[in-house]
């Protein structure tokens, strides 16, 4: 992680001097993380791809405004958060679906792909705010204070969203795990 930060800092410096290739390398290092975060958040592949594109374009345009290159990850995800919620507000207010399909029925043991689908379905039952808290913490590994900066809210709100989401996920997912189905 330290090496990655050092290299990111170098690539950011190159991009700030107008080195497009340097920025392209930076994009290639972060595109998968950003795309997966957006895919789980907006839950639509083409939208996630379009928003990813927009995120990296905005990041390039605003790179000179990034005060501390060591905080690039949080800064990038702040842009992604803003873009994703802009999309959710504009086009997909119906995203918070109450009638999502149920996770695969418990059997003598779920295949990895079935388990992955169960997790995806369980995440889909959360509100976008709760889901995002899980994505940033569990999948992206941000600290609470970094999440608060990305989401633009107090740490207490971050914890509230995350803990509510985990309580819900525990009831959905943990029983399957406890029965030895993972």
């Amino acid at each position, binding site marked *: 992680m330290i090496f990655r930060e050092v290299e990111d800092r170098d690539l950011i410096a190159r991009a700030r001097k107008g080195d497009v290739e340097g920025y392209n390398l930076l994009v290639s290092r972060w595109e998968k993380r950003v795309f997966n975060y957006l895919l789980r958040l907006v839950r639509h592949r083409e939208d996630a791809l379009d928003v990813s594109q927009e995120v990296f374009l905005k990041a390039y345009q605003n790179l000179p405004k990034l005060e501390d290159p060591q905080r690039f990850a949080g800064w990038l995800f702040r842009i992604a958060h803003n873009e994703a919620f802009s999309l959710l507000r504009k086009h997909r207010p119906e995203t918070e679906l109450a009638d999502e399909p149920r996770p695969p029925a418990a059997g003598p043991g779920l295949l990895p792909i079935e388990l*992955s689908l169960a*997790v995806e379905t369980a995440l889909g039952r959360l509100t976008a705010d709760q889901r995002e808290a899980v994505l940033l913490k569990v999948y992206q590994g941000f600290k609470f204070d970094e999440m608060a900066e990305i989401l633009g809210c107090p740490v207490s709100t971050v914890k509230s969203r995350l803990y509510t989401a985990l309580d819900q996920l525990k009831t959905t997912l*943990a029983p399957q795990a406890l029965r030895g189905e993972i």
Partner: protein
Amino acid sequence: MNCDHKSDWNAYALGELTAPEQRDAEAHLSMCEACRDELATLRLTLDTLSTLREEEVPRRIAFVSDKVFEPRWWQALWSPAFAAACVLAAAILVHGFLQPAAVPQAQIDAAVTKAVAQVQDRLVDLDYKSQQLTQAYMTNTGLVRQ
């Protein structure tokens, strides 16, 4: 859960407690089965969440001028538009080579003078024949005095 302990097990499982808070929580865990169960359920949930498969980006995110994926100069040339331009240029060259050599101006002037003279002779001849025919017609129809 029947325990009044104030440890934040979510924060503990997520690695967000300070060192003193963590020590306090672990001391409590060693003597509280209810909290151990609570933590075990939480960890199972987190382990299950970690099974979600990461998706590959469907297509590379294009950005500004992507030199890595720019075609080589010879690949750029090998396009339908370039091929059409080559064919057109070749046609113009072939057409140019097949054209007869340019004729000197003096030769053109002589030919024009000769043609004009021939036309004038022809006109004179036609005028003469026309007069003869007119005369013959008038004689035959009695319009001319004998």
